[in-house]
């Protein structure tokens, strides 16, 4: 079930990098069970997780991501309004010049919408049934990519 050395390496990376993740619920739906479970799993894996709660607007999510200087943004939407909401979010990230932050989306996303979401710039779409382990692995990999981006480095590396 994936070697223990795998897990140890992940844990070491997380500790060394001090990965920071924003978990948010966009839009009006209040089903936060999934978002909270993911937030907790990421925290148990050693990351710093900012959880904003429900009913966030794309503006709130972007501003929070900037103020908290996060490495990855995770969004959960279970209301079916993911296309217009994610479009606004991705455009806003570009506008505020923080589109080097990878964004992943979870929720009740129908398969035919995945392509459109990727085209908007959403980095990863998680369908129902994804394991927490997968989410953790992805987040670490995405954070590594983000810290490699030139735009991010230009702002001020550490």
């Amino acid at each position, binding site marked *: 079930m994936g070697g223990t050395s795998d897990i140890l390496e992940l844990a070491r990376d*997380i*500790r060394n990098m*001090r990965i*920071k993740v924003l978990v948010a619920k966009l839009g009006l739906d209040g089903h936060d069970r999934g978002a909270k479970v993911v*937030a*907790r799993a*990421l*925290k*148990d*894996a*050693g*990351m*710093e*997780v*900012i*959880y*904003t*709660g429900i009913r*966030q*607007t794309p*503006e*709130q999510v972007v*501003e*929070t991501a*900037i*103020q*908290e*200087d996060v490495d990855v943004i995770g969004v959960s939407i279970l209301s079916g309004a993911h296309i217009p909401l994610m479009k606004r979010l991705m455009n806003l990230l570009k506008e*505020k*010049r*923080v589109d080097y932050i990878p964004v992943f989306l979870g929720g009740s996303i129908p398969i035919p919408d995945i392509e459109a979401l990727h085209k908007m710039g959403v980095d990863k779409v998680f369908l129902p049934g994804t394991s927490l382990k997968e989410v953790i692995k992805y987040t670490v990999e995405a954070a590594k990519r983000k810290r490699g981006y030139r735009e991010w*480095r*230009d*702002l*001020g*590396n*550490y």
Partner: protein
Amino acid sequence: MEGSRELLRSALNGDKRALGRLLTILESSPKKAGEVITYTLDKEPDAHVIGVTGIPGSGKSTLISKLITQYKEDNHKIAVIAIDPTSPLSRGALLGDRIRMQEHATDPSVFIRSVPTRGVKGGLSFSGVAMIEVFDYVGYDKVIVESIGVGQTDIDIMNIAHTILVVTTPGLGDDIQALKAGIMEIGDIYVLNKSDKEGAEKTYSYLEFALESYELGVKRGWTPKLIKTSALFGWGIDQLVDLIEEHYKYVLESGLYNEKIGRRRMLMLKLLSEKIFMSLLEEYFNKGIDRDILRKYDLYNASIHLIREIVEKLIKYGG
């Protein structure tokens, strides 16, 4: 690549990305943090630092959110440092204090930052204190530091905040809780929040009595005040703001302002020294410790030997 100076300049010009990045630098790189702070020490500090402490469940975050609304109206620029505990085992943290302040997330004159108490056994972290310097430098004139009232943190709060609010609420177990562990000694303003709840009158009298009982005349010129609020319903917020300003006036007139700045900077130095040393100590234990050390030395001398090794390494490699 922007160096610290460029980042500070951008931040001064209102670039919140740069400010966010500066704060992360304070958290992750002691050396670069030092660079940043060196620049910020140039400016005369003039921010009013307000510490808000109290046990979880007292409604601190909602209260702070109401304060922000008021300060926005009065044209202040407000920064909030929300300190949340880190899980001791996994070292991860789930930072949720800003949930109750999110209505202000998009306001240009507000900046909210969550800080985990990374590995610091109670008490503030270096970065939490250093952030105050940066916020002040960049032009935030009200810096609110929110933390959980637990032991060491309270002492540290006294050294960094000009005005300290201690928040409590009716009926959280015994009212004795509110009087425990010296928390009644550190506050400038005691806030009984959620005063819409049952038992508020009783708790208020209790607190009044407790405040009178302590010989708090020792605090120069300021008698701690007690006030009732309900952040949820918006009661008492105006009066609280007035009280805070009253205290601030006292702070400025009495010379306490600069005294606190001095203490804050000393605390920052102490915390950074601790941080550097502790990380070297941990690295040493993780990698280079000689397993036979307790056979070569007695316990005391083993410790001394260890410290000497670390200091030598520090001198050699400059940290």
